[in-house]
Structures are given as C-alpha cells and as structure tokens.
C-alpha cells in the first residue's frame, strides 16, 4: 500500500469495510506514513464537525402532532381498503347498480346494442337505393348502393358555412356459383 492507493480506499478504511488483509495493510501503512495519518485525522475531524453542526441545528425539530394525525388517518383509510385480489373482486362486485357511472355506461351499451343494426342498414333502406339483382345463368349481379358525403366549406361574412352534398353511388357486385368441388365456398364474389 502506498499513499495513492491508501487515499483511494480511505473512506472504506474508516468504515472498516475493507477485506481483513487490506485493512491490516492499510493500518500498517498509516502507522508509518505521516501524510496519511494527517489525511485520516482530517477525515475524522470533518465527520465530527459536520455531525456536531447537523445535530446542533436539527435537535430542536420534532414531528408535529398534525403530521402524526394525518399519517395515522391515512393508515386507518388504508386499513379499510381491500388488499387481496379476492377482496378487490368482492369490492368490485358489490358496487351498487345505481352508481351513476356504471348505470350510464350500461345504458350507453344497451343503446348501442339496440340501434347498431338500425344504423347499419339505414343507407340501404332508402327506396331509391334498393339493390337490384340481375341473374344470368350460374351468376348474378347485385348493384350495391353506397352513399358519400361531400362537405364544402365557404367563408361568408367572417363565418364558415358548411354545405353538405350527399351523393348516392352504385357499385356492382358479381356473384357466381363456385364450381370447384374441393372448396367449401359456395359463392365467389367479385366487386367491380
């Protein structure tokens, strides 16, 4: 051990956390080296000084009654909350049905379920857009109606006017019988 290597391990030497052999070698070096003795003394003095200053500065402090009260209240609330998975599940299942959030969500789901089909068939429900089938042999063609909307935005007197133009278009879908024996498909659809 020389002065340089001792300086590197000085904090651990003071902590006593070096390996036994290293600690002994460091101790032996310090016994012979005045510079390192001074380094050790300085570190010990620094520790004493700061410890003394800190203790002197903070000894007047103690945890306030309000802080204690708040922490213990938090603890009581925590005790009431479910901790295990089973308790959490039970707590979830016992949520009252009239809970506004749950009831609202259920109502929206019900509405979506009831009206989803209606919204889906609405464009095709118009009389002028009924599909027309034209059969020819093993295949037939269905005209499938589609609606599209175009929005025109125009600025008028400082405000934006939105004009919506709805267009009805037709695409033809060609259905024909599948003649391939190994296929389970009965129909083949070609969209034009």
């Amino acid at each position, binding site marked *: 051990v020389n002065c340089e290597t001792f300086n590197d391990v000085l*904090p*651990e030497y003071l*902590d006593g*956390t070096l390996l036994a052999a290293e600690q002994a070698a460091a101790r032996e070096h310090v016994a012979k080296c005045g510079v390192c003795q001074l380094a050790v*003394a*300085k570190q010990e*003095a*620094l*520790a*004493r*000084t*700061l*410890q*003394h*200053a*800190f*203790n*002197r*500065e*903070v*000894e007047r*402090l*103690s*945890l*306030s009654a*309000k*802080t*204690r009260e*708040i*922490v*213990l209240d*938090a*603890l*009581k609330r*925590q*005790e009431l909350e479910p*901790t295990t998975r089973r308790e959490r599940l039970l707590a979830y299942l016992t949520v009252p049905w009239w809970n506004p959030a749950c009831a609202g969500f259920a109502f929206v789901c019900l509405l979506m379920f009831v009206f989803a089909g209606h919204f889906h068939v609405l464009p095709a429900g118009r009389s002028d857009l009924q599909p027309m089938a034209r059969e020819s042999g093993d295949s037939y063609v269905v005209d499938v109606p589609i609606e599209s909307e175009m929005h025109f935005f125009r600025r008028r007197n400082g405000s934006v006017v939105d004009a919506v133009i709805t267009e009805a278009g037709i695409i033809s879908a060609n259905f024909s019988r599948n003649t391939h024996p190994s296929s389970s498909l009965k129909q083949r659809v070609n969209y034009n």
Partner: protein
Amino acid sequence: MAENQCRSGTKDDSSFDVQEFIDSHGDRLLRSAYLLCGDETEAQDLVQETLIQAIKSWEKFRGESARYTWLHGILLNLCRRHQRKQKRLVYDEDVVEKAAFQADEIREMDRDICAAKITNAMQNLSQEHREVIVLRFYEGMKIDEIARQTGVSKGTVKSRLHYAVRSLEQLLPPEMNLFASDGTHSIGNP
C-alpha cells in the same frame, strides 16, 4: 395500539406498528428531511408524504434492508422531486447566501450560528452532493450503504463525497475550517 398496525406481508413480521415507528424514528426522518431540503415546513410535508407512501406501498417492502433505510429511500426520492420543482428558487438564493458571509461577522459566530451557516451552505450544494453529505455525516452510513441507497456505484459515491466537501468548504468562509481537529474555529467539542 392494534389499530395502528400495518398489514404488511413482509418477510420479517406479519404486522408493523406505525405509531411506534413514528415515535421512534419520526423525528430522525424529519431532521434528515430538514437537512436535505432546508425548510422545516417542507420537511414536515416531506415526512408526511413519505410515511403515507410507505403505508400505501407496504407490501413492496421486501425486508432486504432496515425499515428506516427503506423509508429514507422514499424520502430521498421525494426530496429529489421536490428539489426539481424548487431548482429555480435555490439558485436565486445562492447569491443571497454568498453575500451573507462577511469576514467580520464570522469572528462573532458562536457555535449555533456556525452550525446554521454549515446547514445553510448545504442548501447551496447540488442535490446529489447534499444527499451524500447527509447520508454520510448525519445518518452515519458507510460508502456501500450510500451506494445502495442512492443507486450509484461506490466510486461515484466517493467522488461525490470528495467534491461535495470541497464545494462546502468553498461556500463557507475561510475562517471556518471543517478539517480542524476540534471542528471549525467556532465549532468544536468544549
């Protein structure tokens, strides 16, 4: 007393008396928080937040360290978050603190003022430097314990400690010698 026990599921025991812990370690935690943040009200808030977080995450305590060390880790994280918010304010105060040290004034310092000067100077250190100083010289932790607590290597801890002490020396007036055998000129064992 039983109502203040925390359901924990920890490795060392099945329940833990929070009231008893606050009585035995609350003040120490507060004092450490004060040294880290430099304000008593903030320290009270930080300890309160630390204890509440600890209660909420009690199941995460694996029993690998002492409870106080675990709680101190939570406190350190909260202090860091707090310091990030207060960074601007700290830098503004820096100028004031340096101006406050006048050579004539130093000679009249008594021990309390000297201790206060050191504690105030601590607030001008960076968060990392303040942490290692508090952990080393107030909490009395060893280098490897500080490394575990702060999540850095032992080499980094030693380096931070070296530069932290150097910065502290620069922040204090030259009359205050941190390395004097009896402490500073004004501070020391009677």
